[in-house]
């Protein structure tokens, strides 16, 4: 989100093709009693926040207009943001109303308009901010308004630039509540206040995470299924991604792989516990890769890993026993010692950076797999959902996790993944704005 780089479209004063200014062609639906706000309302077709979606959660045109002052009052003013400030990345979800009436358009203050234009007309912000266009949810009804949910991320170390932008755009004049979760909501609270004159509404990250997962899974029905798994995970040739319906999801082990890892056992929307966590997470993968290969971004590290060979770095069971260690049922291909070959000077000199990146990825991923499997056994849970930005564009790790869960549990455990990987905390924060729990 740093503002020092090239921007496609630029700021609000830039010419914009006007798409985002076009009021929605659909009838305004802001007077509906949206399920996400009023889940008890019978005519609300939209998904209950965090609950199960009985049907398509998107725009419902048919509902009669019943604009009431009370609804207006309970609905927060725009802009609607949810923010998750993690150790490495800031995740931002932004709801862009597409059903703005001309009247509303006129009433809309300049500052709000400029923010909307800026966010929706760009897919990259500064050098490091990115909008994940492929993840955006269109025609979504939220609190009676229809629009698009956008998913944006930028590195946490660029947060000052983001705050600077908020200041220059007079964000604080909008009197909005900024719902934020993640550790950064606490760490940077005073920065938000002093640098951008913004008051944060701080939320617990695990509450938000679970709320976000359940909500997104309930509202996505078009396009690729939100939840998926890998069929035949132990057979590389036949391993394919398949949609999975997360019906009766409980109990569920939710593994959030960000910089570090948190493992939650979820028994219902409001009943969960953090089982454990590990400090060997995405931050470890990237950190070690940077030190070992000189790379500097996650994408770079993944790219290298995809070209490397971990078996040159790791010591396998067969390297020690010449084959399987049958007495203990260990196959020869299993890793006996991660980086074990690197004890030898000759081998250290013969490996490539790509090999090291691959070994780092495999080490971190398998370790998360082992800890998860043990937690699943201890908690007696058979379904595991992996989320978090470590899995973004990281099919290697997802397949490895799918494999590890299946192989070591002899098919008992199923590894599930979600399309919106790292954004659930931010979504949960947004839901809190719209529907305070």
């Amino acid at each position, binding site marked *: 989100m740093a503002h020092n780089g090239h921007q496609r479209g630029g700021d609000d004063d830039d010419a914009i093709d006007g798409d985002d200014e076009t009021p929605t062609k659909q009838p305004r639906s802001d007077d509906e009693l949206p399920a996400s706000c009023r889940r008890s309302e019978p005519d609300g077709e939209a998904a209950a926040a965090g609950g199960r979606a009985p049907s398509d959660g998107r725009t419902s045109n048919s509902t009669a207009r019943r604009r009431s002052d009370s609804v207006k009052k309970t609905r927060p003013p725009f802009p609607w943001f949810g923010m998750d400030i993690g150790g*490495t990345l800031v995740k931002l979800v932004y709801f862009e109303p597409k059903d703005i009436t001309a009247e509303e358009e006129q009433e809309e203050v300049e500052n709000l308009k400029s923010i909307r234009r800026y966010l929706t007309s760009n897919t990259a912000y500064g050098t490091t901010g990115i909008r994940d266009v492929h993840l955006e949810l269109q025609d979504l009804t939220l609190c009676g308004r229809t629009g698009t949910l956008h998913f944006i991320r930028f590195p946490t170390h660029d947060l000052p630039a983001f705050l600077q932008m908020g200041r220059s755009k007079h964000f604080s004049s909008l009197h909005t509540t900024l719902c934020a979760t993640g*550790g950064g909501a606490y760490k940077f609270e005073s920065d938000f206040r002093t640098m951008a004159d913004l008051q944060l509404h701080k939320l617990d990250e695990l509450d938000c995470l679970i709320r976000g997962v359940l909500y997104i899974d309930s509202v996505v029905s078009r396009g690729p299924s939100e939840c998926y798994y890998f069929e035949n995970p132990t057979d590389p040739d036949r391993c394919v991604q398949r949609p999975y319906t997360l019906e009766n999801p409980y109990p569920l082990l939710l593994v959030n792989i960000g910089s570090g890892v948190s493992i939650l056992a979820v028994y219902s929307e409001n009943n969960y516990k953090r089982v454990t966590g590990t400090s060997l997470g995405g931050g470890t993968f990237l950190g070690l890769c940077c030190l070992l290969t000189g790379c500097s971004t996650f994408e770079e590290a993944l790219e290298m890993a995809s070209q490397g060979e971990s078996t040159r770095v790791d010591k396998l069971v067969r390297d020690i026993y010449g084959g399987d*260690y049958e007495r*203990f049922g260990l196959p020869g291909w299993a890793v006996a010692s991660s980086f074990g070959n690197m*004890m030898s000077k000759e081998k250290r000199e013969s490996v490539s950076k790509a090999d090291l990146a691959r070994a780092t990825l495999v080490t971190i991923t398998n370790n998360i797999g*082992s800890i998860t499997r043990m937690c699943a*056994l201890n908690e007696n849970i058979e379904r595991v959902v992996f989320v978090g930005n470590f899995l973004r564009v990281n099919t290697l790790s997802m397949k490895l996790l799918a494999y590890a869960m299946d192989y070591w549990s002899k098919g008992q455990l199923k590894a599930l993944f979600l399309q919106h990987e790292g954004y659930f905390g931010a979504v949960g924060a947004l839901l809190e704005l719209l529907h305070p729990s």
Partner: protein
Amino acid sequence: MAECGRADSSSTTHTMDKSITLPPDEIFRNLENAKRFAIDIGGSLTKLAYYSTVQHKVAKVRSFDHLGDPLYEISEQEEVTARLHFIKFENAYIETCLDFIRDHLVNTGTKVIKATGGGAHKFKELIERKLGLKVDKEDEMTCLIRGCNFVLRNIPHEAFVYAKHADSEFRFQTTHPDIFPYLLVNIGSGVSIVKVESEDKFERIGGSSIGGGTFWGLGALLTKTKRFDELLQLASKGQHASVDMLVRDIYGGSYGSLGLTGDLIASSFGKSATADKGFSKEDMAKSLLHMISNDIGQLACLYAKLHNLSRVYFGGFFIRGHPVTMHTITYSINFFTKGEVQALFLRHEGYLGAIGAFLKGAEEDNPNQYSWGENYAGSSGLMSVSPEMNPMQRARSGTFDMLEMDRLERQLVNLPLLQDPSSYIPDTMDLTEDALAREYWLSCFEEALDGVVKRAVASQPDIPEAIERSEKFRQKYRHKLQTLRQQPFAYGSLTVRSLLDTREHCLNEFNFPDPYSKIKQRENDMALRYYQKAVKSLEQLSWEQRQFALVRGVLAGNVFDWGAKAVSDSLRPALLLQGPPHKCALFFVDNSGVDIILGVMPFVRELLSRGTEVVLASNSGPALNDVTNGELQILTERIAAMDPVIQAGLRDDRLTLVQSGSSSPCLDLSRLDKVLAMVVRERQTDLVIIEGMGRALHTNYYARLSCESLKTAVIKNSWLAERLGGKLFSVVFKYEVPPGKPSQEDSSAPSTPS
């Protein structure tokens, strides 16, 4: 994942270094009688095990046929006992060692050598060629578990908890009578987690590929430091917070709702992706160490929880004597189990594979049928490999570490009358934890050394080379004391008992089996002459007076004429023998001479007269001037000849003499002769009397028994008397009745005569 998948690293090449000169007779001891070899070759260290017979002198007493002076004959005879030798050295020395063994092996009937460890196949050809023995490979894990069971069963204070910031870093655990089930986490290049349920039943329930090899391999890549030890050195000096992303780096403080404090690591190496500057080697090594230790600890906890196990032992080269890794693993286990599980480590962890391989090869000798004891004289003891903790340590390279275990003649078991065998701790004072007491006793033993040497020489007046041996003894024991000053934890908890036992082991080592034999003989002779007189004078006393006099006699020991009035003022010992007689009394006796003959025997006589059966337990082997079972047999016969009460007792089998199984001036009630335990049970023993400083004060002062007990001693050490709040020659007379039983008297000690 594979357990001790050993590192075959460049730093541990096995280049044959012929120039090394070994001090062989100090290391490969008793090689000429060696039979049965086993070898465990790891990534950098080789462990050799062999069984040998040791010929050494033992003191024997034999009764003369005629009555008179002296009353028995003392002789020193050669006796052959069995000993296990274990030697640990760097792989670089293998060839030199094999050559030495070949040259000194005399007439072993052995045709095979049991081998285990990752390096076994690499050296197979070399071993077969050098020794002419066939290498017979044994499964590593099986050997490891066998060895682990063996040390847990036979070495008291084998397991310990590591506490970096405590007064004593090593807190030794009392041996639990039932060692199963337990979890063994072996951290070699990978990690194996093994659940052990019985001697033969164990299962590898899991593991991890992130282990010692990961620390070493990744550490070498990150810091360009090649050696494992150096990496640990780096780690011990580093600060991980510059490399790791902590909870406070994300939250600005703690994550309160989850109870995660700010200094917890949220993401290992999490800062290295964004930092502009490089990191110091030390900091990266530290971060890596934390990452790996925490990960292993977490997995171990998850497995322990799943299998409901609370005893978790850690071993493997990652742990082996390294305070740094023991600390981080301990921290991790404590964190993940919220203190419910303690990480346990083993003193002889490095030897487990070799011991196990040896046991596999010795199955026909049934080694598990015997009890074994660590020989303090021949064992190096636990050495910390951390230089800052161990300034005395020689350069690690070229260090030979040894463990010797003696096969005990008898099988040792718990006293059946212990209230709670699992919590029984023999020793009253732990000198590992009490620095003041340690200093006092170490100095005390050092000062006494001259006297002991003199006495040893005097005990063998006709043997000229005794002087030379006595000097060797002096050197060895002094060295042990110096080692213990630096590393009080070398042989488990340091106690007065271990100091005394070490001295006995060293004396035996240099063929001084019984330096006090002549003194004992003289005192026994003398005391016997007064026996009848003493008994007669006792019989003339009123019942009550007699009770006082009897107790006085027992207490007095060698301070026979000690102030009687004071005793009667402070104690009411008569109550002990009031009321219905006991069924059977077990009496652990102390000194020769006046003590046993004029103190204990009249008391025994009184017990017998009351209808109480008596079991007299005395040492199996000599220690100081304590009466041995052999001597007591003769003495009792002599007394029986003079005293019809004693005679009848022996005749009717109401007075029984048993061996304690010990050769120590102290007493470990958890390691007693099996026969003694049997007799105690059969006779329904309901009173235990423990006599003397060594047995009732240095040890067993706090021992809780399930029947009535009396611990009695005279404090003949002013420092100790002061420590206990009394004066020199204070009396300990501790009569205890277990909860739930009617108490006649409960007077505690020490009581000081006015």
